[in-house]
Protein backbone atom coordinates (compact mmCIF):
# COMPACT_ATOMS: atom_id res chain seq x y z
CA UNK A 1 0.00 0.00 0.00
CA UNK A 2 3.00 2.32 0.20
CA UNK A 3 2.97 2.32 -3.61
CA UNK A 4 -0.65 3.35 -3.53
CA UNK A 5 0.16 6.16 -1.09
CA UNK A 6 3.05 7.38 -3.25
CA UNK A 7 0.77 7.32 -6.29
CA UNK A 8 -2.04 9.21 -4.54
CA UNK A 9 0.45 11.74 -3.26
CA UNK A 10 1.89 12.54 -6.68
CA UNK A 11 -1.06 11.68 -8.90
CA UNK A 12 -2.24 15.26 -9.50
CA UNK A 13 1.24 16.60 -10.20
CA UNK A 14 1.98 13.69 -12.52
CA UNK A 15 -1.25 13.84 -14.50
CA UNK A 16 -1.10 17.63 -14.85
CA UNK A 17 2.53 17.39 -16.01
CA UNK A 18 1.68 14.61 -18.43
CA UNK A 19 -1.26 16.52 -19.89
CA UNK A 20 0.81 19.68 -20.10
CA UNK A 21 3.69 17.97 -21.94
CA UNK A 22 1.43 16.08 -24.35
CA UNK A 23 -0.64 19.15 -25.24
CA UNK A 24 2.33 21.50 -25.64
CA UNK A 25 4.40 19.05 -27.68
CA UNK A 26 1.62 17.82 -29.96
CA UNK A 27 0.48 21.37 -30.54
CA UNK A 28 4.04 22.44 -31.36
CA UNK A 29 4.66 19.54 -33.73
CA UNK A 30 1.25 19.81 -35.37
CA UNK A 31 1.61 23.56 -35.87
CA UNK A 32 5.22 23.32 -37.11
CA UNK A 33 4.38 20.55 -39.57
CA UNK A 34 1.65 22.61 -41.10
CA UNK A 35 4.15 25.27 -42.13
CA UNK A 36 6.97 22.94 -43.18
CA UNK A 37 7.57 22.13 -46.83
CA UNK A 38 6.43 18.59 -47.81
CA UNK A 39 9.98 17.75 -48.89
CA UNK A 40 12.67 17.10 -47.96
CA UNK A 41 11.98 14.69 -45.10
CA UNK A 42 15.01 16.08 -43.33
CA UNK A 43 12.94 19.08 -42.26
CA UNK A 44 10.69 16.70 -40.28
CA UNK A 45 13.70 15.14 -38.62
CA UNK A 46 15.05 18.55 -37.71
CA UNK A 47 11.66 19.45 -36.27
CA UNK A 48 11.78 16.33 -34.11
CA UNK A 49 15.15 17.38 -32.76
CA UNK A 50 13.74 20.77 -31.78
CA UNK A 51 10.61 19.16 -30.35
CA UNK A 52 12.78 16.95 -28.22
CA UNK A 53 14.77 19.94 -26.98
CA UNK A 54 11.54 21.63 -25.89
CA UNK A 55 10.36 18.39 -24.31
CA UNK A 56 13.67 18.04 -22.42
CA UNK A 57 13.34 21.52 -20.92
CA UNK A 58 9.75 21.09 -19.88
CA UNK A 59 10.34 17.50 -18.72
CA UNK A 60 13.05 18.71 -16.34
CA UNK A 61 10.70 21.28 -14.83
CA UNK A 62 8.08 18.58 -14.34
CA UNK A 63 10.33 15.90 -12.79
CA UNK A 64 11.78 18.40 -10.34
CA UNK A 65 8.22 19.14 -9.27
CA UNK A 66 7.53 15.40 -9.01
CA UNK A 67 10.59 14.98 -6.81
CA UNK A 68 9.12 17.26 -4.18
CA UNK A 69 7.35 15.70 -1.22
CA UNK A 70 8.36 12.96 1.15
CA UNK A 71 8.72 12.97 4.91
CA UNK A 72 9.96 16.54 5.22
CA UNK A 73 6.93 17.87 3.41
CA UNK A 74 4.75 15.60 5.53
CA UNK A 75 6.37 17.04 8.63
CA UNK A 76 5.56 20.56 7.40
CA UNK A 77 1.96 19.41 6.90
CA UNK A 78 1.99 17.76 10.34
CA UNK A 79 1.36 14.21 9.13
CA UNK A 80 4.84 12.66 9.30
CA UNK A 81 4.12 10.98 12.65
CA UNK A 82 1.38 8.90 10.98
CA UNK A 83 3.82 7.65 8.36
CA UNK A 84 6.65 7.09 10.82
CA UNK A 85 4.42 5.13 13.20
CA UNK A 86 3.89 2.50 10.49
CA UNK A 87 5.97 -0.67 10.84
CA UNK A 88 8.03 0.28 7.81
CA UNK A 89 11.66 1.35 7.61
CA UNK A 90 12.49 4.84 6.45
CA UNK A 91 14.65 3.36 3.71
CA UNK A 92 11.63 1.54 2.32
CA UNK A 93 9.50 4.67 2.50
CA UNK A 94 12.14 6.59 0.55
CA UNK A 95 12.74 3.74 -1.91
CA UNK A 96 9.06 3.45 -2.79
CA UNK A 97 8.79 7.17 -3.30
CA UNK A 98 11.88 7.21 -5.53
CA UNK A 99 10.71 4.20 -7.55
CA UNK A 100 7.28 5.68 -8.18
CA UNK A 101 8.94 8.97 -9.18
CA UNK A 102 11.32 7.22 -11.58
CA UNK A 103 8.44 5.35 -13.22
CA UNK A 104 6.45 8.56 -13.57
CA UNK A 105 9.49 10.33 -15.03
CA UNK A 106 9.86 7.59 -17.63
CA UNK A 107 6.18 7.89 -18.48
CA UNK A 108 6.60 11.65 -18.83
CA UNK A 109 9.20 11.00 -21.52
CA UNK A 110 7.53 8.10 -23.35
CA UNK A 111 3.93 9.32 -23.53
CA UNK A 112 4.67 12.76 -25.07
CA UNK A 113 6.98 11.11 -27.60
CA UNK A 114 4.27 8.58 -28.43
CA UNK A 115 1.90 11.50 -28.92
CA UNK A 116 4.42 13.24 -31.19
CA UNK A 117 4.83 10.10 -33.30
CA UNK A 118 1.07 9.74 -33.52
CA UNK A 119 0.48 13.35 -34.60
CA UNK A 120 3.32 13.13 -37.06
CA UNK A 121 2.04 9.91 -38.57
CA UNK A 122 -1.44 11.39 -38.97
CA UNK A 123 0.10 14.37 -40.73
CA UNK A 124 1.80 11.98 -43.15
CA UNK A 125 5.27 12.63 -41.78
CA UNK A 126 6.13 9.40 -40.00
CA UNK A 127 9.21 9.42 -37.82
CA UNK A 128 11.40 6.49 -36.83
CA UNK A 129 10.43 4.73 -33.62
CA UNK A 130 14.10 3.79 -33.13
CA UNK A 131 15.08 7.48 -33.26
CA UNK A 132 12.32 8.39 -30.82
CA UNK A 133 13.50 5.60 -28.51
CA UNK A 134 17.04 6.97 -28.68
CA UNK A 135 15.77 10.43 -27.69
CA UNK A 136 13.72 8.96 -24.82
CA UNK A 137 16.69 6.93 -23.58
CA UNK A 138 18.91 10.01 -23.48
CA UNK A 139 16.26 12.11 -21.83
CA UNK A 140 15.37 9.59 -19.13
CA UNK A 141 18.91 8.56 -18.22
CA UNK A 142 20.50 12.01 -18.37
CA UNK A 143 17.46 13.67 -16.87
CA UNK A 144 17.46 11.25 -13.97
CA UNK A 145 20.25 13.38 -12.51
CA UNK A 146 17.77 16.25 -12.19
CA UNK A 147 15.10 14.07 -10.65
CA UNK A 148 17.63 12.68 -8.16
CA UNK A 149 18.70 16.23 -7.37
CA UNK A 150 15.09 17.13 -6.63
CA UNK A 151 14.73 14.09 -4.35
CA UNK A 152 17.93 15.02 -2.51
CA UNK A 153 16.87 18.63 -2.06
CA UNK A 154 13.45 17.57 -0.79
CA UNK A 155 15.21 15.37 1.79
CA UNK A 156 17.31 18.24 3.07
CA UNK A 157 15.28 21.41 2.68
CA UNK A 158 12.06 22.02 4.61
CA UNK A 159 9.12 24.00 3.37
CA UNK A 160 6.35 23.79 0.85
CA UNK A 161 7.84 26.46 -1.41
CA UNK A 162 11.46 26.64 -0.25
CA UNK A 163 12.27 23.09 -1.39
CA UNK A 164 11.10 23.52 -5.02
CA UNK A 165 12.76 26.95 -5.19
CA UNK A 166 16.07 25.48 -4.02
CA UNK A 167 15.67 22.47 -6.34
CA UNK A 168 15.12 24.66 -9.40
CA UNK A 169 18.03 26.86 -8.33
CA UNK A 170 20.25 23.80 -7.94
CA UNK A 171 19.19 22.51 -11.36
CA UNK A 172 20.13 25.83 -12.96
CA UNK A 173 23.44 25.71 -11.11
CA UNK A 174 24.11 22.19 -12.39
CA UNK A 175 23.33 23.40 -15.91
CA UNK A 176 25.74 26.35 -15.58
CA UNK A 177 28.51 24.18 -14.12
CA UNK A 178 28.09 21.51 -16.81
CA UNK A 179 28.03 24.23 -19.46
CA UNK A 180 31.28 25.74 -18.16
CA UNK A 181 33.05 22.42 -17.80
CA UNK A 182 31.90 21.31 -21.23
CA UNK A 183 34.11 23.95 -22.83
CA UNK A 184 37.03 21.80 -21.71
CA UNK A 185 35.34 18.41 -21.91
CA UNK A 186 32.33 18.59 -24.28
CA UNK A 187 31.03 15.16 -23.25
CA UNK A 188 30.35 16.53 -19.75
CA UNK A 189 27.60 18.83 -21.00
CA UNK A 190 24.49 17.24 -19.52
CA UNK A 191 22.09 19.39 -21.52
CA UNK A 192 23.70 18.38 -24.83
CA UNK A 193 23.52 14.77 -23.67
CA UNK A 194 19.84 14.96 -22.79
CA UNK A 195 18.81 16.75 -25.96
CA UNK A 196 20.87 14.41 -28.14
CA UNK A 197 23.01 17.26 -29.43
CA UNK A 198 26.14 15.13 -29.02
CA UNK A 199 24.74 12.62 -31.51
CA UNK A 200 22.90 14.96 -33.85
CA UNK A 201 23.98 14.71 -37.45
CA UNK A 202 23.52 18.13 -39.02
CA UNK A 203 23.30 16.65 -42.51
CA UNK A 204 20.68 13.95 -41.94
CA UNK A 205 19.13 15.64 -38.88
CA UNK A 206 19.04 12.25 -37.21
CA UNK A 207 20.81 10.90 -34.15
CA UNK A 208 23.74 8.81 -35.22
CA UNK A 209 26.50 6.79 -33.65
CA UNK A 210 26.41 4.14 -30.99
CA UNK A 211 24.32 4.40 -27.86
CA UNK A 212 26.46 6.28 -25.29
CA UNK A 213 26.51 3.54 -22.70
CA UNK A 214 29.29 5.16 -20.74
CA UNK A 215 27.42 8.46 -20.49
CA UNK A 216 24.21 6.64 -19.57
CA UNK A 217 26.05 4.64 -16.91
CA UNK A 218 27.73 7.77 -15.53
CA UNK A 219 24.44 9.68 -15.31
CA UNK A 220 22.68 6.75 -13.64
CA UNK A 221 25.55 6.41 -11.17
CA UNK A 222 25.35 10.09 -10.23
CA UNK A 223 21.59 9.78 -9.83
CA UNK A 224 21.94 6.60 -7.75
CA UNK A 225 24.45 8.31 -5.48
CA UNK A 226 22.06 11.19 -4.91
CA UNK A 227 19.19 8.76 -4.23
CA UNK A 228 21.39 6.93 -1.74
CA UNK A 229 22.40 10.19 -0.07
CA UNK A 230 18.75 11.22 0.27
CA UNK A 231 17.87 7.86 1.86
CA UNK A 232 20.72 8.27 4.34
CA UNK A 233 19.60 11.80 5.17
CA UNK A 234 16.04 10.61 5.81
CA UNK A 235 17.27 7.73 7.97
CA UNK A 236 19.24 10.08 10.20
CA UNK A 237 16.75 12.88 10.30
CA UNK A 238 14.58 13.54 13.37
CA UNK A 239 10.89 14.11 13.01
Amino acid at each position, binding site marked *: *MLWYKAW*LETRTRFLVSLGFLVIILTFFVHHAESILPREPKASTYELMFFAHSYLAGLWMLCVILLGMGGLLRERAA*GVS*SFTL*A*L*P*VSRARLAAVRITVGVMQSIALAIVPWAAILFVSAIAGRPFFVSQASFYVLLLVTGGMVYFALAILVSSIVDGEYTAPAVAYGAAILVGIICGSVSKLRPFLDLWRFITGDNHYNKTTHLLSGPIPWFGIFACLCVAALMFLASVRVIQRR*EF
Partner: protein
Amino acid sequence: MTNAPAIETHGLVKSYGRVEAVRALNLCVEPNCITAFLGCNGAGKSTTIKMLLGMIAPSAGEGTVLGKRIGDPNESREARGKISYVAENKPLYGYMSVEQTIRFAGSFYRDWRDETAKELLYRYGLPLERKVRLLSKGMRTKLALLLAFARRPELLILDEPSEGLDPVGIEELLQTLVGQCAEGTTVFFSSHQIAEVERIADRVCILDKGRLMVDASLDHLRESYRRIDLVFPTTPCEPDFRMNGIESVRGAGCQLSVFASGNVEAVIERAHDLRATSIEVAPVGLRDIFLETVKEN
Protein backbone atom coordinates in the same frame (compact mmCIF):
# COMPACT_ATOMS: atom_id res chain seq x y z
CA MET B 1 0.95 -12.44 28.09
CA THR B 2 4.18 -11.45 29.81
CA ASN B 3 5.08 -9.60 32.97
CA ALA B 4 7.99 -7.75 31.40
CA PRO B 5 7.43 -3.98 31.29
CA ALA B 6 5.74 -2.78 28.13
CA ILE B 7 7.90 0.34 28.21
CA GLU B 8 11.13 0.74 30.10
CA THR B 9 13.64 3.59 29.91
CA HIS B 10 16.87 4.23 31.77
CA GLY B 11 18.32 7.72 31.95
CA LEU B 12 16.62 8.77 28.75
CA VAL B 13 17.67 12.25 27.68
CA LYS B 14 16.68 14.41 24.75
CA SER B 15 18.44 17.69 24.23
CA TYR B 16 17.87 20.37 21.63
CA GLY B 17 20.99 22.45 21.83
CA ARG B 18 21.23 23.57 25.44
CA VAL B 19 17.61 22.81 26.18
CA GLU B 20 16.91 19.44 27.76
CA ALA B 21 13.40 18.43 26.74
CA VAL B 22 13.63 15.12 28.60
CA ARG B 23 16.01 14.65 31.53
CA ALA B 24 17.25 11.29 32.76
CA LEU B 25 13.87 9.65 32.40
CA ASN B 26 13.46 6.30 34.14
CA LEU B 27 10.07 5.10 33.08
CA CYS B 28 8.50 1.71 33.65
CA VAL B 29 5.08 1.01 32.18
CA GLU B 30 3.60 -2.20 33.47
CA PRO B 31 1.88 -4.51 31.02
CA ASN B 32 -1.88 -5.00 30.84
CA CYS B 33 -2.77 -1.84 32.68
CA ILE B 34 -3.68 1.75 31.85
CA THR B 35 -0.93 4.24 32.52
CA ALA B 36 -1.59 7.95 32.24
CA PHE B 37 1.21 10.28 31.29
CA LEU B 38 0.56 13.74 32.67
CA GLY B 39 2.41 16.99 32.30
CA CYS B 40 2.03 20.62 31.34
CA ASN B 41 2.55 21.79 27.78
CA GLY B 42 6.21 21.43 26.91
CA ALA B 43 6.86 19.00 29.77
CA GLY B 44 8.36 16.49 27.33
CA LYS B 45 5.48 14.03 26.96
CA SER B 46 5.32 14.07 23.16
CA THR B 47 9.11 14.08 22.89
CA THR B 48 9.23 10.97 25.10
CA ILE B 49 6.58 9.24 22.99
CA LYS B 50 8.44 10.13 19.79
CA MET B 51 11.62 8.61 21.23
CA LEU B 52 9.72 5.47 22.19
CA LEU B 53 8.48 5.13 18.61
CA GLY B 54 11.87 5.77 17.01
CA MET B 55 10.88 9.08 15.42
CA ILE B 56 13.66 10.91 17.22
CA ALA B 57 16.87 9.54 18.65
CA PRO B 58 17.64 9.91 22.37
CA SER B 59 20.61 12.14 23.20
CA ALA B 60 21.54 9.73 25.98
CA GLY B 61 20.12 6.76 27.82
CA GLU B 62 18.29 3.76 26.52
CA GLY B 63 14.90 2.18 26.50
CA THR B 64 12.80 -0.70 25.30
CA VAL B 65 9.26 -0.93 24.04
CA LEU B 66 7.75 -4.42 24.13
CA GLY B 67 11.26 -5.69 24.69
CA LYS B 68 12.65 -4.00 21.55
CA ARG B 69 15.37 -1.40 21.85
CA ILE B 70 14.19 2.05 20.79
CA GLY B 71 17.63 3.04 19.49
CA ASP B 72 17.76 0.20 16.96
CA PRO B 73 15.78 1.07 13.81
CA ASN B 74 15.01 -2.57 12.97
CA GLU B 75 13.86 -3.44 16.48
CA SER B 76 11.87 -0.23 16.65
CA ARG B 77 10.13 -1.17 13.38
CA GLU B 78 9.27 -4.58 14.81
CA ALA B 79 7.85 -2.97 17.92
CA ARG B 80 5.75 -0.56 15.86
CA GLY B 81 4.04 -3.56 14.28
CA LYS B 82 2.59 -4.35 17.70
CA ILE B 83 1.77 -0.78 18.71
CA SER B 84 -1.24 1.36 17.89
CA TYR B 85 -0.31 5.01 18.07
CA VAL B 86 -2.56 8.03 17.93
CA ALA B 87 -0.57 11.25 17.74
CA GLU B 88 -1.48 14.53 19.35
CA ASN B 89 -2.80 16.37 16.28
CA LYS B 90 -4.35 13.20 14.76
CA PRO B 91 -2.27 13.36 11.58
CA LEU B 92 -3.79 11.67 8.54
CA TYR B 93 -3.29 12.13 4.82
CA GLY B 94 -5.64 14.83 3.60
CA TYR B 95 -5.56 13.51 0.03
CA MET B 96 -6.98 10.11 1.03
CA SER B 97 -10.64 9.39 1.62
CA VAL B 98 -11.81 7.75 4.84
CA GLU B 99 -12.11 4.42 3.03
CA GLN B 100 -8.64 4.71 1.48
CA THR B 101 -7.15 5.61 4.86
CA ILE B 102 -8.71 2.57 6.52
CA ARG B 103 -7.57 0.26 3.72
CA PHE B 104 -4.10 1.81 3.75
CA ALA B 105 -3.58 1.51 7.52
CA GLY B 106 -5.10 -1.95 7.70
CA SER B 107 -2.67 -3.34 5.14
CA PHE B 108 0.33 -2.94 7.47
CA TYR B 109 -0.87 -4.94 10.44
CA ARG B 110 -1.48 -8.65 10.97
CA ASP B 111 -3.73 -7.92 13.94
CA TRP B 112 -6.13 -5.78 11.90
CA ARG B 113 -9.79 -6.70 12.49
CA ASP B 114 -12.06 -5.86 9.57
CA GLU B 115 -15.23 -6.56 11.52
CA THR B 116 -14.20 -4.20 14.31
CA ALA B 117 -13.29 -1.53 11.76
CA LYS B 118 -16.76 -1.83 10.18
CA GLU B 119 -18.44 -1.70 13.56
CA LEU B 120 -16.48 1.39 14.60
CA LEU B 121 -17.12 3.01 11.24
CA TYR B 122 -20.83 2.58 11.80
CA ARG B 123 -20.67 3.72 15.42
CA TYR B 124 -18.61 6.82 14.64
CA GLY B 125 -20.69 7.69 11.60
CA LEU B 126 -17.70 8.42 9.39
CA PRO B 127 -18.44 9.15 5.71
CA LEU B 128 -16.44 6.60 3.69
CA GLU B 129 -16.05 8.62 0.52
CA ARG B 130 -15.12 11.94 2.12
CA LYS B 131 -11.54 13.15 1.88
CA VAL B 132 -9.77 13.38 5.22
CA ARG B 133 -8.96 17.05 4.66
CA LEU B 134 -12.69 17.77 4.57
CA LEU B 135 -13.41 16.09 7.92
CA SER B 136 -14.04 18.11 11.06
CA LYS B 137 -11.52 17.90 13.89
CA GLY B 138 -13.78 15.57 15.84
CA MET B 139 -14.31 13.30 12.85
CA ARG B 140 -10.58 13.18 12.18
CA THR B 141 -9.99 12.22 15.80
CA LYS B 142 -12.59 9.46 15.48
CA LEU B 143 -10.92 8.15 12.33
CA ALA B 144 -7.52 8.14 14.05
CA LEU B 145 -9.02 6.25 16.98
CA LEU B 146 -10.73 3.80 14.61
CA LEU B 147 -7.35 2.99 13.07
CA ALA B 148 -5.96 2.32 16.54
CA PHE B 149 -8.90 0.34 17.90
CA ALA B 150 -9.54 -1.80 14.82
CA ARG B 151 -6.48 -3.78 15.80
CA ARG B 152 -5.55 -5.98 18.70
CA PRO B 153 -2.21 -4.38 19.56
CA GLU B 154 -0.01 -5.27 22.48
CA LEU B 155 0.47 -1.60 23.29
CA LEU B 156 -1.71 1.44 22.69
CA ILE B 157 0.07 4.78 22.83
CA LEU B 158 -2.26 7.74 22.70
CA ASP B 159 -1.19 11.35 22.81
CA GLU B 160 -4.12 13.40 24.09
CA PRO B 161 -6.70 11.11 22.52
CA SER B 162 -9.82 12.94 23.68
CA GLU B 163 -8.85 16.26 22.12
CA GLY B 164 -11.57 17.36 19.72
CA LEU B 165 -14.16 14.85 20.91
CA ASP B 166 -17.56 15.78 22.29
CA PRO B 167 -18.63 14.43 25.74
CA VAL B 168 -20.32 11.41 24.15
CA GLY B 169 -17.20 10.66 22.15
CA ILE B 170 -15.02 11.02 25.24
CA GLU B 171 -17.24 8.63 27.18
CA GLU B 172 -17.04 6.06 24.36
CA LEU B 173 -13.29 6.52 24.18
CA LEU B 174 -12.81 5.89 27.90
CA GLN B 175 -14.98 2.78 27.76
CA THR B 176 -13.06 1.51 24.75
CA LEU B 177 -9.73 2.03 26.52
CA VAL B 178 -10.94 0.07 29.51
CA GLY B 179 -12.21 -2.64 27.15
CA GLN B 180 -8.91 -2.78 25.28
CA CYS B 181 -7.04 -3.14 28.55
CA ALA B 182 -9.39 -5.95 29.61
CA GLU B 183 -8.51 -7.74 26.36
CA GLY B 184 -4.84 -7.64 27.33
CA THR B 185 -3.63 -4.45 25.68
CA THR B 186 -1.35 -2.14 27.62
CA VAL B 187 -2.57 1.44 27.38
CA PHE B 188 -0.20 4.38 27.73
CA PHE B 189 -1.82 7.73 27.17
CA SER B 190 -1.06 11.37 27.75
CA SER B 191 -3.81 13.76 28.69
CA HIS B 192 -4.57 17.14 30.14
CA GLN B 193 -7.98 15.96 31.29
CA ILE B 194 -7.35 14.91 34.89
CA ALA B 195 -10.94 13.78 35.40
CA GLU B 196 -10.60 11.27 32.54
CA VAL B 197 -7.34 9.99 33.97
CA GLU B 198 -8.86 9.53 37.41
CA ARG B 199 -11.66 7.49 35.92
CA ILE B 200 -9.66 4.91 34.04
CA ALA B 201 -5.95 4.98 34.90
CA ASP B 202 -4.29 2.31 37.00
CA ARG B 203 -0.98 4.12 37.16
CA VAL B 204 0.01 7.75 36.78
CA CYS B 205 3.30 9.26 35.64
CA ILE B 206 3.74 13.00 36.02
CA LEU B 207 6.40 14.66 33.94
CA ASP B 208 7.52 18.20 34.58
CA LYS B 209 10.21 20.07 32.67
CA GLY B 210 11.46 16.76 31.32
CA ARG B 211 11.74 15.08 34.72
CA LEU B 212 9.59 12.26 35.99
CA MET B 213 8.16 13.59 39.24
CA VAL B 214 5.59 10.93 40.06
CA ASP B 215 5.31 7.29 39.00
CA ALA B 216 2.82 5.42 41.13
CA SER B 217 -0.49 3.64 41.04
CA LEU B 218 -3.55 5.84 41.30
CA ASP B 219 -4.70 3.91 44.38
CA HIS B 220 -1.37 4.51 46.06
CA LEU B 221 -1.55 8.23 45.29
CA ARG B 222 -5.06 8.45 46.70
CA GLU B 223 -4.03 6.61 49.84
CA SER B 224 -0.82 8.44 50.55
CA TYR B 225 -1.46 12.06 49.56
CA ARG B 226 -3.17 14.33 52.09
CA ARG B 227 -3.72 18.03 52.62
CA ILE B 228 -3.37 19.02 56.28
CA ASP B 229 -4.78 22.41 57.23
CA LEU B 230 -3.51 23.71 60.55
CA VAL B 231 -4.45 26.73 62.64
CA PHE B 232 -2.15 28.01 65.38
CA PRO B 233 -2.59 30.67 68.12
CA THR B 234 0.48 32.50 66.80
CA THR B 235 2.21 32.63 63.42
CA PRO B 236 3.78 29.20 62.91
CA CYS B 237 7.23 28.56 61.58
CA GLU B 238 7.04 26.83 58.18
CA PRO B 239 10.44 25.05 58.37
CA ASP B 240 9.14 23.12 61.41
CA PHE B 241 7.08 21.07 58.99
CA ARG B 242 9.74 20.46 56.36
CA MET B 243 10.27 16.75 56.70
CA ASN B 244 10.25 13.58 54.68
CA GLY B 245 7.11 13.13 52.61
CA ILE B 246 6.12 16.78 52.81
CA GLU B 247 5.71 18.15 49.31
CA SER B 248 4.84 21.73 50.19
CA VAL B 249 4.11 23.98 53.14
CA ARG B 250 2.26 27.25 52.72
CA GLY B 251 1.52 29.70 55.48
CA ALA B 252 -0.93 32.59 55.71
CA GLY B 253 -1.03 34.32 59.08
CA CYS B 254 -1.82 31.77 61.76
CA GLN B 255 -2.81 29.15 59.21
CA LEU B 256 -0.60 26.58 57.59
CA SER B 257 -1.41 24.26 54.72
CA VAL B 258 0.76 21.18 54.40
CA PHE B 259 0.67 18.99 51.31
CA ALA B 260 2.01 15.56 52.15
CA SER B 261 2.72 12.43 50.16
CA GLY B 262 3.41 10.57 53.41
CA ASN B 263 4.44 11.06 57.02
CA VAL B 264 1.05 12.53 57.88
CA GLU B 265 1.20 11.21 61.44
CA ALA B 266 4.46 13.06 62.07
CA VAL B 267 2.92 16.31 60.83
CA ILE B 268 -0.03 15.89 63.15
CA GLU B 269 2.27 15.13 66.07
CA ARG B 270 4.36 18.24 65.31
CA ALA B 271 1.18 20.32 65.09
CA HIS B 272 0.08 19.06 68.52
CA ASP B 273 3.51 19.91 69.90
CA LEU B 274 3.17 23.43 68.54
CA ARG B 275 -0.30 23.71 70.15
CA ALA B 276 -2.35 23.82 66.97
CA THR B 277 -5.94 24.85 67.64
CA SER B 278 -7.30 23.10 64.58
CA ILE B 279 -6.03 20.15 62.57
CA GLU B 280 -7.89 19.02 59.47
CA VAL B 281 -6.65 16.16 57.32
CA ALA B 282 -8.31 15.78 53.92
CA PRO B 283 -7.71 13.37 51.07
CA VAL B 284 -6.75 15.00 47.78
CA GLY B 285 -7.61 14.28 44.20
CA LEU B 286 -5.26 13.72 41.29
CA ARG B 287 -5.83 17.29 40.14
CA ASP B 288 -4.35 18.65 43.40
CA ILE B 289 -1.49 16.20 43.28
CA PHE B 290 -0.69 17.22 39.73
CA LEU B 291 -0.92 20.95 40.43
CA GLU B 292 1.20 20.70 43.57
CA THR B 293 3.80 18.60 41.78
CA VAL B 294 4.25 20.96 38.86
CA LYS B 295 3.96 24.05 41.09
CA GLU B 296 6.64 22.85 43.46
CA ASN B 297 9.01 22.06 40.64
